């Protein structure tokens, strides 16, 4: 069976005019992560390991809104969240409200593997991180100058700014997003992981779609999905689960009128849909190994591009 991997660094109204000095570092990171994933999959690593590996790299890149480089709450603090899910076993783990953990995605995996629970948040999650001995840093480590400026501007505009999308007049750097990765390994195992700092100027304590299984993150034996965009819209449309639910419950694509459209409608989220999806869909039988990187972003009224990997 062929392996496949897809990753994303957030969705939104990214301007085509994004200057090269802002575009290139992000693209370079995506390419590096894709190479990393490809090498890992070629050498037989499990999908779950690969998605964790890739999301850790993206978390460590200050150009994306996860790990170092996470956007700031209204209080000027960082509250990171992440989730991971294994498609075959449906095992999953999630964390919210992290302020010191260097790689939130790895803590989510530890919640999955080392606790009887799925989801730990805030002080309890921080305490668990210390128990497990994962790498932690002072909260200031995660705060970048660019994000301080972003918060200042968001406060000036007196609004909660969607991390990736709202045009900020003076600073195109605001377009940084949630990160995620989906993979299927050559043994046919699917996995997904998503990580984020959330929204610029979010209220302290706000939880978005990323750690909510079925909303921002979901995998089963049919597909693996990582969503990004307006968290509140993704939650109420249970976007990640709905991609899987359509594959599972609906007749094969083509025989169901509007099947794809329904999935898309789910993503579009009733008029305020700024969301992108990532799907790794299992397709047995063909021996071709392939990978493709799709930057699934939606521009204005155009339908979402890409998002599917088969």
């Amino acid at each position, binding site marked *: 069976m062929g392996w496949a991997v897809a990753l994303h660094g957030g969705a939104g109204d990214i301007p085509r005019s994004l200057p090269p000095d802002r575009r290139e570092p992000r693209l370079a990171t995506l390419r590096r992560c894709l190479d990393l994933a490809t090498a890992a999959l070629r050498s037989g690593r499990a999908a779950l390991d690969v998605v964790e590996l890739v999301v850790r790299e993206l978390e460590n890149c200050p150009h994306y809104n996860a790990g170092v480089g996470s956007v700031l709450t209204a209080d000027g603090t960082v509250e990171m969240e992440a989730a991971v899910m294994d498609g075959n*076993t*449906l*095992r*999953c783990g*999630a964390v*919210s*409200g992290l302020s010191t953990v260097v790689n939130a995605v790895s803590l989510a995996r530890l919640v999955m593997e*080392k*606790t*009887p*629970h*799925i*989801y*730990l*948040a*805030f*002080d*309890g*999650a*921080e*305490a*668990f991180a210390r128990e497990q001995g994962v790498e932690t840093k002072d909260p200031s480590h995660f705060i970048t100058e660019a994000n301080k400026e972003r918060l200042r501007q968001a406060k000036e505009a007196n609004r*909660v700014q969607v991390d990736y999308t709202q045009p900020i007049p003076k600073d195109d750097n605001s377009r940084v997003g949630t990160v995620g990765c989906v993979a299927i390994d050559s043994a046919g195992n699917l996995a997904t992981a998503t990580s984020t700092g959330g929204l610029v100027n*979010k*209220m*302290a*304590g*706000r*939880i*978005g779609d990323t750690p*909510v*299984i*079925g*909303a921002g993150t*979901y995998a089963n034996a049919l597909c693996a999905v990582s969503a990004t965009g307006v*968290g*509140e819209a993704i*939650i*109420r*449309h*249970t976007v990640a*689960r*709905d991609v899987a*639910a*359509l594959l599972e*419950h*609906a007749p094969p694509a083509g025989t169901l009128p509007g099947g794809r459209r329904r999935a898309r409608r789910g993503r579009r989220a*009733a008029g305020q849909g700024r969301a992108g999806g990532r799907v790794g869909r299992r397709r047995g039988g063909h021996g071709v190994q392939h990978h493709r990187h799709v930057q699934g972003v939606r521009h204005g009224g155009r339908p979402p591009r890409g998002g599917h990997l088969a």
Partner: protein
Amino acid sequence: MARWAIAIHGGAGVDPNLPEHRQEEAKRVLARCLQVGVDALRSGAAALDVVEAVVRELESDPFFNSGRGSALTRLGTVEMEASIMDGRGRRCGAVSGVSTVKNPVSLARLVMDKSPHSYLAFDGAEQFARDQGLEVVDNSYFITEDNVGMLKLAKEANSILFDYRIPLSGSETCGAQAVSSDNSHGNGMVMNGLPISIYAPETVGCAVVDSSGHTAAATSTGGLMNKMTGRIGDSPLIGSGTYACGACAVSCTGEGEAIIRSTLARDVAAVMEYRGAGLQEAVDYCVKERLDEGFAGLIAVSSTGEVAYGFNCTGMFRGCATEDGFMEVGIWE
């Protein structure tokens, strides 16, 4: 005019040896709270207001595991969570890690109505409650003598084991193994790593369709006895513990982790939407096919005024009523 319908629950996974007087008390509380909803629906209240009002009643009564009477964390504290969803527009609100708010379901509603977000947790949720002027009480208000005793027993049982329910290989039904695994308590039934005699049915919930055909659902819980602090279960998770849309409204209860893995509440709606199933058919399918090795139950109403429930464990405290005069309160099959 559509026909209204209401279903409520007070948790799934009931000790088969629950004393008769406790069973009677449970039914009395359920009947009283159900009547609150029925009266509101008869007077034309909107589904969203009804689910909030009914869940407030259930929270305020110490019998069930939500609000006053919530299960205790490992540290002996209460950390409550709740969510609410309006089928119209699929608006939703949720809270976790609430420790002083008297009625978490109302805080969830305020998150939906008054914040730019749909989910707030821990200190941020508490701060928001104060900003909104909601009634707050000391954490000790929620702690009952019964639950202090239960926590002690739970600790003695060295419970909340590593998640033995997850199959390490293959897809054998580990539920059966879990039930027969080594535990010397009660009748051998285990839920969430707790002998059924200690397990506090997690959660209360309500699902309603009003006479305008609008649906709503709400769920509230203290979570799992002896849980790690910071643990979030299925109740506040839209699509897992709570869901409402144009087709139906659903509230789930039971082993939270199994409900999350199966996105149980959303799947009832998805089976109706994508397979064209009826309400009871969708409920039966999800309980049978979507719950892996976990124990859980759920209540549901359809936008056309049907009620349904289902569970795969010993029993579920529940009640339901419809406009044509049907009313039922029950615990066992």
